[in-house]
């Protein structure tokens, strides 16, 4: 599956080579290499921003349409066939609205917050191996610390949300962003634990390497890790049941209460881009990236897997209520943290056993047969752990005895 990147595939390296050739053919020397570097960077940014904005636009349409269906409504259906042009109408309306900045706001922080929220989300996409042509290629495919880059970049989110809340000088916004700061930082840890268990098996930080090492999808090998990572990333992007940052029935609109016009559009964009990005990360880490049967190109498989994950997120969003902030923090530290650690312990022990028994390939990764055995063991362990946890949490707290009438007012309504 590993082949040399064809010349026409768009990646940072191929673009740089193209521009270097172009510059040299124009008669400039080797010292103008930085121009090629810059031009390649700009091209990649242009591509990423446009593709992602369009994808997000259609995702918002899909989400509204789908949630409408879940709520037995129609969803947007007036602009164009099936309402497909609704996002453009939304953006047009938001751009034409007055861009208000509150008098008491911290203007630079207030203005920078949407950008600070959007930029990291966009940056993640450059290391995702979409497999547009081959099974493993990202726009910046040679970045060997891909997943570390993602972890680093996503943690900017909490600062951005706090900037938005603090800068707008609004009590609802500050409440939302305080919750956000606490929650996002807490959920970084289970998220990192989930990633660590993947790294143990793949043995590399590069996203392409992670995809290649999944001869069995990691969701099958370690369901607990998938659960931990999925729950943590749902919280990271602040969606139901963890949507405390923007709890619209409690805080009005949370951190973006004071935003309007184009700034709100950017915040909205970042917020709705997050599920796409998360789905892409989860697909890469746990669902085998662009792996699939050969009758479809890898990019299509990647898109199908992303779609399934996005639909799952939508389904959960349209069904479950929201947890309270202390319950969310408790869930992070008492449940997810423990499960994540346990999962790492389990995978590490299994890995050590594999090394002892000689079930490793030449490059140090595990054989497919051993991964299957691991999958069987881990599924059993996961189910047992969840049942024990459920009984431990459920039994004592939520038992409802039969109600007995209070003696205060039984005005002859005893029997019927």
């Amino acid at each position, binding site marked *: 599956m590993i082949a040399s990147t064809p010349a026409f595939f768009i990646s940072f390296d191929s673009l740089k080579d193209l521009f270097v050739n172009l510059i040299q053919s124009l008669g400039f020397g080797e010292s103008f290499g930085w121009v090629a570097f810059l031009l390649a960077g700009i091209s990649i940014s242009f591509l990423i921003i446009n593709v992602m904005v369009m994808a997000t636009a259609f995702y918002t349409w899909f989400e509204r349409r789908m949630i409408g269906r879940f709520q037995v409504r129609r969803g947007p259906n007036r602009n164009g066939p099936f309402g497909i042009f609704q996002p453009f109408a939304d953006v047009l309306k938001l751009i034409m609205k007055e861009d208000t900045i509150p008098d008491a706001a911290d203007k630079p922080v207030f203005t920078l917050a949407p950008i600070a929220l959007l930029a990291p989300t966009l940056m993640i996409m450059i290391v995702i191996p979409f497999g547009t042509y081959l099974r493993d290629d990202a726009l910046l495919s040679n970045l060997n610390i891909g997943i570390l880059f993602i972890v680093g970049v996503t943690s900017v989110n909490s600062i951005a949300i706090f900037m938005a809340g603090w800068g707008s000088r609004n009590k609802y916004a500050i409440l939302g962003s305080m919750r956000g700061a606490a929650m996002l930082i807490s959920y970084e840890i289970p998220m990192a634990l989930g990633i660590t268990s993947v790294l143990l098996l793949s043995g590399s930080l590069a996203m392409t390497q992670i995809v290649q090492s999944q001869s069995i999808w990691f969701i099958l090998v370690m369901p607990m890790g998938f659960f931990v990572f999925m729950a943590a990333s749902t919280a990271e992007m602040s969606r139901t049941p963890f949507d405390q940052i923007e709890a619209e029935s409690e805080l009005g609109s949370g951190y973006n209460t004071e935003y309007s016009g184009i700034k709100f559009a950017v915040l909205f964009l970042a917020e709705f881009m997050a599920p796409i990005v998360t789905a892409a990360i989860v697909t890469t880490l746990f669902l085998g990236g662009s792996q699939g049967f050969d009758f479809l190109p890898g990019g299509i498989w990647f898109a199908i897997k992303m779609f399934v994950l996005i639909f799952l997120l939508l389904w959960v969003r349209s069904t479950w209520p929201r947890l309270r902030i202390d319950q969310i923090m408790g869930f992070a530290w008492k449940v997810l943290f423990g499960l994540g650690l346990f999962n790492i312990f389990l995978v590490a022990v299994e890995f050590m056993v594999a090394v002892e028994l000689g079930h490793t390939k030449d490059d140090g990764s595990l054989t497919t047969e051993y991964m299957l055995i691991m999958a069987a063991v881990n599924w059993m362990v996961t189910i047992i752990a969840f049942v024990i946890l459920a009984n431990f949490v459920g039994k004592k707290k939520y038992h409802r005895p039969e109600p007995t*009438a209070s003696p205060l007012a039984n005005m002859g309504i005893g029997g019927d």
Partner: protein
Amino acid sequence: MSTIRTEPVTINLGPQHPSTHGVFRLRVTFDGEEIIDVEPVFGYLHRGTEKLAESRNYVQIVTLTDRMDYVASMSNNLAYVRTVEKLAGIDVPERAQYIRVISVELQRIASHLMATGFLLNDLGALATPLVYCFRERERILDLFEMLCGARITLSYMRPGGVFQDAPDDFWNSLNTLISDFPNYLDELESLITTNEIVLARTIGVGLLSDTQAVDSGVTGPVLRAASVKWDLRKANPYEVYDRVKFDVPIGNSGDTYDRYYVRLQEMRESIKIISQCIEQIEPGPVRTETPYFIRPPVGETYSSVEGPKGELGFYMVSDGGISPYRCKVRAPSFINLTPLKDMLTGWKMGDLIIILGSIDIVLGEVDR
């Protein structure tokens, strides 16, 4: 080492807020996320119903009562016309009483559906249960449209009966509704009642003990959730409630979950009442002939019914003229807010919203 200085934050929750169910304002003082003080502020929707009633005649006031609890107009109508009938000594034909009970129980279902839906909306369920509730409520509103030509502001009842008999197709639709409705309630229950997030959010939250509830004059589902078995339909049967069999569901401890669950069970009981009424109802006149301008004898009276939100009562003084000398409304939404501070103090922001949602206030009735 210096400690970080903290101070309580005061937030004006409302009058424009998605979860205050209208223009209700709460001045809440938070210590972080925890509530340390609450001060409710009313009056943003005050329309002077009681004063307006003094310049209208007894039939015209029916239209005013529609606009008090605007999600349960039928119950308001009933409470009002019963008071006038008591004041003026008007008899009501039996068929009219049955139709009144059927329509009031339908209204109770509609109101409870809205309460449940909005409680779930307050819990953050992105309006999905709310829309499911509204889907069924629509069918009840369709029934009301058949019955009296309007969907919300019904003005259906008149002193001495109801203004018009139900059309023929009403009974078919009603039969379909009551045969479908238990299934629908089962579905709603499996969506909400066993949902662990709902349980985690509602059980033990916003406790109201039975003594506290009785002391603060709370009525309706809020009182019954506090395990006090008190229902005016049983305790002081009016219309034909003494001829139908139904239970009074009570809760366990008076927490938010109980208030939700009592409402759900009451909907089942209402269905029972309606189906019994359909069996018992007989043809006959639906309205006693009353003069256009009723002139009750000089006197005063108080009469109340069990509305969806609690005891809805009217106190009326007549000076022998065509309009009342004084008309006072005992609005359950308003009085149910009495123990609000005790219920809220010590809980968190998210709990505030659902406790307020579980009391099920309607601001048209609170401010009148």
